């Protein structure tokens, strides 16, 4: 009896501790949303009360006009969407090849995929910037300030890590499936296309979300390779709320909420796939 009570007390303590940590963890996000419903004057004076008598929904309307935020939003969606599609399909193909075949050069390829992660992005930044200038000067083909320039760079950057995720996922699917399919008369490609691809949907979705979130987050290259607001992405555009003389914290927080909440919604609709996909390979090391 007494050990039972002792155990339930300690269990209660641990549960409370867990919930305290959970609440502390999500507090900054709630604070962002809460702040976005204040006027700028209230924010500058410092908000120290947790009640909100008059929510300033107008911030969510003003943020779109003040800096033309809709354009940045559209650019981000376009660039990240295209990157996800491209890098995702490359990762599926190459990941499958690496998981299933021991072809000459596969070791070298795996090594080079890992080593790309070790190279600081900045080392690519200068050459790519100059290369883009060179292409423009030599062929008259604009690369800086274009969608395809950004998509090209992002696709190349997120492909290697996505190959790793896809590869771990394919390794977790038993080999017998393709073998029995080939016995039934499928070609290698048909076995991949008809049997393995549908089965690896959780992994593909996980990889896709991973690529999208990473691209949505990219700032350094976007900042250097785009100078016109026609192609600039959200992380570049959002700084316009921070002025030299006055910072529109109300609009800044509203915009931050607007760029965070949609990805959160997408993420939580697919998180089941994401978690199974990400952990399929990760836990095996």
């Amino acid at each position, binding site marked *: 009896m007494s050990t039972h009570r002792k155990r339930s007390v300690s*269990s209660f303590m*641990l*549960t409370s501790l*867990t919930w305290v940590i*959970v609440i502390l963890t999500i507090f*900054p*996000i709630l604070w*962002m949303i809460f702040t976005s419903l204040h006027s700028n004057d209230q924010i500058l004076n*410092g908000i*120290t009360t947790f009640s909100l008598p008059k929510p300033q929904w107008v911030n969510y309307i003003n943020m779109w006009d003040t800096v033309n935020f809709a354009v940045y939003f559209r650019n981000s969606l376009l660039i990240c969407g295209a990157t996800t599609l491209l890098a995702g*399909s490359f990762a599926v*193909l190459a990941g499958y*090849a690496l998981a299933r075949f*021991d*072809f*000459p050069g596969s070791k070298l*390829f795996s090594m080079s995929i*890992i080593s*790309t992660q*070790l*190279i*600081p*992005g*900045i*080392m*690519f*930044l*200068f*050459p790519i910037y*100059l*290369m883009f200038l*060179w292409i423009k000067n030599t062929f008259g083909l604009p690369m800086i300030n274009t969608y395809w320039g950004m998509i090209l*760079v992002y696709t*190349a*950057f997120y*492909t*290697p890590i996505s190959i790793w*995720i896809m*590869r*771990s996922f394919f390794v977790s699917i038993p080999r017998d499936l393709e073998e029995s399919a080939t016995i039934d008369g499928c070609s290698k490609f048909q076995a991949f296309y008809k049997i393995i691809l549908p089965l690896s949907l959780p992994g593909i979705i996980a990889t896709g979300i991973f690529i999208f*979130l990473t691209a949505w987050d990219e*700032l*350094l290259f976007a900042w250097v390779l785009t100078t016109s607001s026609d192609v600039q992405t959200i*992380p570049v555009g*959002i*700084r316009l709320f*921070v002025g030299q003389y006055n910072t529109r*914290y109300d609009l800044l*927080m509203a915009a*931050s909420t607007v*760029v*965070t909440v949609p990805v*959160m919604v997408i993420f939580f609709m697919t998180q089941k796939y994401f978690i199974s996909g*990400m*952990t399929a*390979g*990760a*836990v*095996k*090391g």
Partner: protein
Amino acid sequence: MGLHTEKNLPVKAAPSKSAVWRKRVRDNKFAYMLMVPTIIFMLLVHLLPMIQGFWMSFLKLNQFTLGKYLKAPFVGMDNYIGLLFNSDNPVRQGLNFAIRNTVIYSVIVTIGVMIMGLMMALLMNRDFPGRSIARTAMLLPWVVPSYVVGVLWGFMWQQNGIINYFLVDVLHLFDEKPFWLLGPNTIWAIIIPTIWRGWPFLMVIFLAGLQTIPEDIYEAATIDGAGKLRQFWNMTLPMLKPVIAVQLLFQIINNVYSYNIVSTMFGNGAGYPGEWGDLLMTALTRQSFGYWSFGSGSAASIMLMFAMLMVVGVWYRAFRSELNAQ
């Protein structure tokens, strides 16, 4: 994200090595076809710029030679020597601070996210009311874009911000409201948000790792009289070691190359975040683009890459047995 190493297929005793090689290439035609798009992309956007970056590190590149940058004057090791010994080199300015901060930042963040992630995974692995809601809520910070993390925490760290309100007005930890975005406190202003955003992901990974450990070995250990702490130390940790090894490497790389949080917390990288807020990536970008000295910038990033290779070497030696056991 696993570092799987697969066993080689046994190669049968064959007439000649090159014949075997040719046969293996022929047999794997399908695999090569699958790799083609990736290989083309990686040659164009990884290998080519990398070679070019390497070459640029031996050139004198400034605003005058940039136009025909591949024909810029060759200066040999001057960029490297300038970075190491010449204090007038513009890219070098403030690099000492950036290196110190990057080391402090990446060590504390990496250890912080690993410990917090593991602790939270252990807490979440229990059955308790609202567990699935708690798990979902825990993941929220990981989805927040890191530039928003910089903006949001930069706002919360302000002198009359919410953090000082809690620390001073509620908890009375300080007499006066401290400045967090100025002076030595700055390093905490960038470390804490990074940990905050990073550890939910590790929690998910560790949680998945914990669930692969069979329940009965714990029961056996309990019968043998091993306490919880001992079970954790002697069973849970060793079982998680391969997962820890891989995540550790990814964390180190991520944190050394961290850019977004600092750059949005302090005026989008254009400004100087101060002696205690500057990281290698922000410093190198600002100085190289500020002075158009891409040669020195390239040389610095190559040295950084070699430093990282050494870190990976140490990492590999430390975890070799776990990685090969897979």
